[in-house]
């Protein structure tokens, strides 16, 4: 088990290195040098050259990457060209905001998907199953950003106008009202719409996934054996079927958390939440290389971490799998 984790961690290093190099190279190419704005100054090209030499961007990409990497190992992601702040100082608060969305999003989508999936599999071809299936199809096909706009229109701004409320039931900007903090009703009213937008697709597709794997499991021989033993239906559903259907589901959940990270860009932009997604978006627009590359590395690390967690959980849930 320990050697397994160690091996996986070792394998992660070259992957992350390569991914970071790719991003470093691509974004350096994409954004040009931060000194370009000096081109219009009095000294023109000379000033640009001097500036580039000073911050080291006159060197070839591999050399710059090596130097940058050396700093990263020491925890220094460089300075943001947009805000002139230390990148590492900007990442902290952004990660905290994103963390809240991810945690609540995961709880919501996993529990709803599991419940809906199990329910529609044991009630296969019933009216509620058809209804949930239809909803899931729409949810899967729903572009998340459009869902975000609709949610704002119908769950926030709309009700406020129709019922002439002082403030909307759910807020559409940030995680707290101005000056607010902590875990309270105001927080939940801010959290609801972004979390829903972030998870609508996962809820829909995961519930289908759970339903399918439940149906697979329910048709196996060992479920028939359990019935032949006289085990009551409810026990069969949870102890025998769901327990087995969880195995593939856990893997999918952990792997698709990656999709959640991507979805954050949209959600945080629509609901103006200063998290990692918003940070990436803002930095990319102005070509803030250091932030973009740092973002990529951190995201990649998290995704690999989730993959590892998926495998560990798999080994834990399925006694046939041995992690070596």
């Amino acid at each position, binding site marked *: 088990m320990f050697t397994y984790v160690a091996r996986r961690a070792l394998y992660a290093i070259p992957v992350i290195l390569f991914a970071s190099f790719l991003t470093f190279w691509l974004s350096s190419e994409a954004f040009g040098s931060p000194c370009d704005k000096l081109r219009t100054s009095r000294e023109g090209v000379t000033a640009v050259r001097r500036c580039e030499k000073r911050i080291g961007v006159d060197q070839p990409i591999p050399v710059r990457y090596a130097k940058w990497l050396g700093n990263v190992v020491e925890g220094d992601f460089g300075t943001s060209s947009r805000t002139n702040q230390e990148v590492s100082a900007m990442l902290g608060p952004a990660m905290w905001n994103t963390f809240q969305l991810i945690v609540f999003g995961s709880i919501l989508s996993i529990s709803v998907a599991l419940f809906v999936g199990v329910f529609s599999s044991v009630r296969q071809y019933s009216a509620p199953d058809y209804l949930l299936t239809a909803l899931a199809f729409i949810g899967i096909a729903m572009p998340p950003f459009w869902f975000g706009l609709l949610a704002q229109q119908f769950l926030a701004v709309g009700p406020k106008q129709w019922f002439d409320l002082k403030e909307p039931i759910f807020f559409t900007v940030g995680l707290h009202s101005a000056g607010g903090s902590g875990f309270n009703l105001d927080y939940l009213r801010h959290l609801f719409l972004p979390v829903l937008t972030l998870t609508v697709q996962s809820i829909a597709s995961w519930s289908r996934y759970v339903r399918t794997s439940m149906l697979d499991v329910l048709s*196996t*021989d*060992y479920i*028939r*054996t*359990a*019935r*032949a*033993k*006289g*085990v*009551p*239906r409810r*026990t069969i559903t949870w102890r*025998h079927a769901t*327990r*087995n259907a969880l*195995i593939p589901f856990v893997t999918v959940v952990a792997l698709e958390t990656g999709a959640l990270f991507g979805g954050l860009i949209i959600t945080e932009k629509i609901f103006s939440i200063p998290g990692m997604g918003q940070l990436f978006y803002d930095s990319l627009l102005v070509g803030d290389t250091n932030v973009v590359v740092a973002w990529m590395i951190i995201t990649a690390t998290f995704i690999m971490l989730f993959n590892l967690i998926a495998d560990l959980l798999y080994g834990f*849930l*399925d*006694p*046939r799998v041995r992690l070596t």
Partner: protein
Amino acid sequence: MTDADLPTLTPTDAPITRSPAIPSAPTEPLLSVRDLSVTFHTDDGDVHAVDAATFDVAANETVGIVGESGSGKSVTALALLGLLPKSATITGEIRFKGRLLGELSDKAMQPIRGEEIAMIFQDALAALNPVHTVGAQIAEAIRVHHPETSAKELHARSVELLDIVGIPNPTDRVEQFPHQFSGGMRQRAMIAMSIANDPALLIADEPTTALDVTVQAQVLEVLERIQDRTQSSIILITHDLGVVAGVVDRVIVMYAGRQVEFGSVDDTFYEPKHPYTEGLLASLPRLDRRAEKHSRLHRIVGQPPSLIRLPGGCAFHPRCPYADLGGRCDHDRPELLPVGPDHRSSCFFPERVGTGGQS
């Protein structure tokens, strides 16, 4: 196996009538099945998996059901326990200890399953839940019917059951998962689970098919030993005539969902009264026939029919060497009628069987 081993065979003169009465035990049989039919509705048409099965099983008796795959033997077994999918239509009567099982709801069947009628499935690897230990699965079989049993007792009983079926180191084995067992061991564990509550009727569906020959013998031996211990009845489903000859009292031969012959093992195997049974027996490779170099392994010509479009008349007539084409065989459906004491056949011309036929 001698006649003395066949307690239910009563040498009475069974009245030759057209009634569905069947050679039966002197007392009320443990299980009696009358006109049991199972039909599956598919897109391509109705599949008549079992057609009017009628038989009895007496207490402490072993009845074998033989036939090719698709002949309806397993479907019959599942119908007895009410384990068929909803797509199946079941008609007829299943009477167990005087109760009509067909009229019970799924919930009402639960106390019977595993407690009074237990089932041993063929592929034990698939039939055991991969994520629970063998011990937990045996314990569950007890707990659902006896919820008052303490965890300690459950554990002790699981170990004991594994010991009974001849699994070495039962205390260690009880903590293991099915995939850690060998094929024969898994089948034994399956048997241990099914006998956990000393059921009155044990249905074994091809319990030895997936096993090596030596292990087969061991598993069958376990079954016999258990029967001696618990006095339970066994329905043994198999396509292996050797297995049947070894352990069974009476045998039902099925073809295309229909019973074609039913009688004591000796009658059926030494004097088959249905051409299909005769064909089955003749197609067995036999060591003692090796010397006859020119004799080739017999085979039944043709293929088993589609259960959706059964041939008219006797389902076996297209493959039958004795068939009276243009006569009754391809016209009328033969009934299972007595051909001797405790011996029935659904052939119009049972006397022709054994004469070699024209083809």
